[in-house]
């Protein structure tokens, strides 16, 4: 049994049908990338898994537990975390409050020091309000907020978007450390090089349909696929 099993997932925004019978599986300790052009349905897939968008039909099982009809807080308590595309940091709360808040209902939350070991910059800025952080610091905080809950699986939605290369480098390293430590990750990202460096397996989504599944190595060897679905 896979850690995450998604089958027949259909999601809508109002009357607009966005996801069509999405099928995915993610094994424990695996890093899986979901690639596609803008508007292909990548973020909607992650939001549907997390319950931020309620799927109309289909099944999402995490560790064998059905999540598809549950609300986001219930899904979070089952061990899933979504790091949103726009980070959604609480600007009026400081760094430490953001992290503490995230861990409030987690049964096995990380100690703060473990978070600060992974992101020393956050320790330096622990009393700074969310609005006073740089983009890179906000992204670190968004990931830290997810990690403090010790999730079974993290969904990362465009974690490197709009960040300076040096910050991307640090974040890629942090993600690689997480992956090597056995953290299961689903990654949506436009930065193909960073994605293929992290992921072992890849799904390509196009117009709400999963059109390809394979290893990252296979995809690198198939420039035609990259050109056809990603335009690169």
């Amino acid at each position, binding site marked *: 049994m896979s850690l995450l099993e998604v089958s027949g997932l259909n999601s809508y925004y109002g009357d607009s049908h966005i996801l069509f019978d999405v099928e995915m599986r993610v094994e424990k300790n695996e890093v899986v990338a979901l690639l596609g052009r803008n508007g292909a349905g990548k973020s909607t897939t992650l939001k549907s898994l*997390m319950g*931020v968008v309620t799927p109309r039909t289909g099944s999402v099982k995490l560790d064998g537990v059905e999540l598809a009809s549950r*609300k*986001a*807080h*219930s899904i*979070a*308590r089952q061990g899933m*975390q*979504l790091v*949103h595309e726009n980070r*959604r940091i*609480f*600007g*009026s*709360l400081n760094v430490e*409050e953001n992290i*503490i*808040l*995230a861990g*409030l*209902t*987690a049964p096995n939350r990380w100690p703060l020091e473990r978070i600060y070991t992974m992101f020393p910059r956050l320790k330096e800025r622990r009393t700074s309000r969310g609005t006073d952080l740089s983009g890179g610091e906000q992204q670190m905080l968004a990931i830290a*907020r997810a990690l403090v*809950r010790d999730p079974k699986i993290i969904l990362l939605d465009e974690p490197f978007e709009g960040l300076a290369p040096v910050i991307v480098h640090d974040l890629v390293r942090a993600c690689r450390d997480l992956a090597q430590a056995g953290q299961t990750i689903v990654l949506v990202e436009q930065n193909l090089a960073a994605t293929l460096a992290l992921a072992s397996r890849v799904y390509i989504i196009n117009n709400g349909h999963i059109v390809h599944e394979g290893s990252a190595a296979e995809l690198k060897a198939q420039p035609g696929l990259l050109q056809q679905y990603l335009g690169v």
Partner: protein
Amino acid sequence: MINWANFISQCFNGLVLGALLALISSGLTIIYGTLGVLNLAHGAMFMLGGYAGWVAYTYTGSFLVAVVAGSLFVMIVGVVVERLIIRHFYTRPHEDQLLVTFGLGIVFVEAVRFFFGSMSQTVPPPGLLVGITNLGFMIYPTYRLALLGIVAVALVALYFVLYRTRIGMIVRAGIEDSVMVDSLGIDVYRIFMLVFGIGAMAAGFAGIVNAPVVSIAPDVGEAILVQTFVVVVIGGVGSFLGAIIGGLIAGEIISITSMFNPGYSYVVLFVAMTLVLVLRPHGLLGTAGRE
């Protein structure tokens, strides 16, 4: 005749009214900030607090019991209303939310009119606070001075809950982004219910502690509702500190303008609100968080 003694007295009246408006508005602003619902029944909650307290006072003769009963009753009403009605309107358009809360306000007012009639009722202040106090530069009703202190303590208590407790941390986060709070494993609907209850309780508390100053009547909440909306707009939607500043500004505007011509007090109040909207569209301390 207008003289310095009158002016200072009116400034004090403005301070008392402002503190009261700040307390009521803080409830309204955290409800809107967290739930995204403009609660047009908030004025009726103020009225219900007054009546619940008056009933308790009639049976017990204790002002303290009246205050506790008025506050708790309205908190329970708030929790029940959120659970049974408001919850079904979170995803509905704002127009629907306005209509349902407006309708609830009418139901509360008419229910009170049905059971207690339209005549105004009074709750006397506690014996210790009857009479006047000589402040040296003027004499002032003792209960009004005490009311200032009572409301200040209530606001400090609310501040403590919002800024020094974990529940408050969740509420502040919820005001910014309730979806994200939910994504972090916190049942945001329970928080919504709590916030609605606390917001309603603030209005109910204000309703009963104000009863010795202004007689209670079924429609006493209507004027308060208009004033508190102006306060929330001036202070910034969702901002607790904004509600306090906005309340004090509105209280002074109403009181000082009334000294010259009471008919213009609302005109000046709305001019002030318009100026704030032009210069700072999100209010003095508001942010552009919620659409």
